[in-house]
């Protein structure tokens, strides 16, 4: 019983990390159809932002809290810049965005290597987040993982509020559902695209701050997470927030249970097979927008 509980907690915490890194992609890939391979490097930006802030602000807790909004702004600004420079020229060729942003991600990785050096760097977690919290009965939960879970849920909540309740969110949804109709209704679709990209990339930055608590910070850290993040969005369904949330936790728990009964590498393969099998049942993902399009 203890084992099962521990494994499910591990699964939930893997799921929380997945959710956090996939959340920005739900907007940029799910809603806008842009396959942004540099998303992983925006995550990296968030992590390095935390690192830089920690060296200039004393007190790990304070710097972590400051890092959250700063990383959001820095990564968001980079995303908006990328959208303005390159991606807006490629909306008619979504697959090519993958290759173009891959080129960008190569350059950003090298930039990180030149600025911060090739070896991984470390940040110190604040004291509050270093211990374990006992859940009773021998079940423990790392408090840093709990923090990430809280951060992920908070980000989902914030994104939901923005998308559902604000005029900006209404415009974003309008552009996603019918770009031409939104345009003739007086929405500046180009500006909405840029803001959407800003938010999506900013969320990657927030994910990067969280990842400093669980793993090393290095130039290639984005590559480790990017494919998993895309899989979450694919299985969740196009631009469906609730799909991403459910998928992230389901994949996290599946991964952790399989990892316990087999090995990490076998678990990865089984998860992939499960995803392909799942897409047989629901080719458009868990949740879909109903459309009359033939495609």
């Amino acid at each position, binding site marked *: 019983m203890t084992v099962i509980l521990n494994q499910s907690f591990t699964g939930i915490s893997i799921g929380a990390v997945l959710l956090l890194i996939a959340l920005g992609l739900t907007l940029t890939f799910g809603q806008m159809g842009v396959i942004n391979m540099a998303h992983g490097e925006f995550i990296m930006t968030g992590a390095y932002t935390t690192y830089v802030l920690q060296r200039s602000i004393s007190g790990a807790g304070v710097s972590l809290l400051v890092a959250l909004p700063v990383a959001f702004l820095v990564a968001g600004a980079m995303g908006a810049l990328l959208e303005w420079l390159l991606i807006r020229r490629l909306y008619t060729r979504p697959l090519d965005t993958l290759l173009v942003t891959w080129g960008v991600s190569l350059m950003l990785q090298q930039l990180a290597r030149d600025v911060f050096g090739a070896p991984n760097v470390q940040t110190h977690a604040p004291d509050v987040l270093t211990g374990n919290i006992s859940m009773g009965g021998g079940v423990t939960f790392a408090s840093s993982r709990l923090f990430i879970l809280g951060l992920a849920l908070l980000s989902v909540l914030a994104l939901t509020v923005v998308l559902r309740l604000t005029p900006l969110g209404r415009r974003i949804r309008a552009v996603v559902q019918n770009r031409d109709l939104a345009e003739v209704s007086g929405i500046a679709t180009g500006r909405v695209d840029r803001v959407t990209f800003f938010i999506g990339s900013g969320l990657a930055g927030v994910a990067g701050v969280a990842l400093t608590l669980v793993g090393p910070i290095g130039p290639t850290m984005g*590559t480790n997470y990017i494919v998993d993040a895309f899989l979450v969005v694919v299985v969740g369904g196009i631009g469906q927030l609730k799909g991403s949330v459910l998928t992230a936790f389901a994949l996290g728990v599946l991964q952790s249970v399989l990892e316990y009964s087999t090995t*990490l590498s076998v678990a990865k393969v089984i998860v992939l097979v499960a995803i392909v099998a799942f*897409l047989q049942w629901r080719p458009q993902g868990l949740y879909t927008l109903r459309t009359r399009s033939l495609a």
Partner: protein
Amino acid sequence: MTTITETPPAPPTARLRVPGAFVLAAVLLLGVAPLALSDFRLSLLAKYLCYAIVAVGVSLAWGRGGLMVLGQGVFFGLGGYAMAMHLKLTDAAATGETLPDFMQLYGTGDALPWWWEPFADPAFALAMTVLLPMAVAAVLGFFVFRRRVKGAYFAILSQALAAALSIWLIGQQATTGGTNGLTDIQGFFGYSLDDPVNQRMVYFVIAAVLLLLMAGARQLFVSRYGELLVAVRDSEERVRFLGYDPANVKLVAYVVAAGTAGLAGALFVPAVGIISPALIGIVPSIGFVIGAAVGGRASLVGAVLGAVAVAWAQSTLSDAFPAAWTYLQGLLFVLAVGFLPGGLASLGVVLWRRRTRTPATGETA
């Protein structure tokens, strides 16, 4: 969904020109290069030509069929490992051992894993270098195309497959050599690879395979099937309404591209002497596509030359200026894919149009 620069309609003389270009390529690859290049440079060229063989398949599946095949590393790896397993077993047998060297170091040490055993047979191993990748592609393609999973979904699934295979190979240290892969391959069907003469022989085999595949791909492009493939790329629904099943059309292209990549992987092993997870994961898989994109995905010659050029630039420039090369590489992808979707092969056409100020007719992107 994807709009790709259409191949410009072939001028009436194309039929005469193609054999000419083919003969020229054959003379350059089989005659001039072996005479002009040192042993070392020729073996480097052999390696680049392996990437060019992958590019032939990429040009078919992606350039013609619009399938972004981001998992070619998987098929390259399956072909490479099938070949390397056979060569490792022969090497071991030559020194009187039953187990390859790395298994004596890391493995259980007593018996060969059951799935290694058939690879001792050269005919089986050779067949597997092509059949294994094709079978994997057929299974994945069948499930993916039948349910009309496409575009970005397909690209990401094939990428995930590349990640999964390399992670799995790394995890099975005892039977696959783990991170190191299968290294230090000495012989090639009884010929020592240390001997420069035999290295040259490997080069000739690779060049001949490339030329044959290019000729075959060219025939496929101009066949009825080639037309159908382009039709599926440009308007899948219309093809379905005409009574064809686009899933089958795409499946054939995907499977052929996989077999090509497998063959390339198999030839890569004697040319370079190693196959490892680092050569087949996500990053090299994207690399296979990038060369073709830079050269021109829809043009067979463009894709092949692009693959060779990018591989050449990678190994020469990255040794001399590692940091500068990465920036340059990134910039190259951004500029070539973002602003010249037909690749360098279309540069002439694009410039010509600009000069004569004719409206871009074939250019939909």
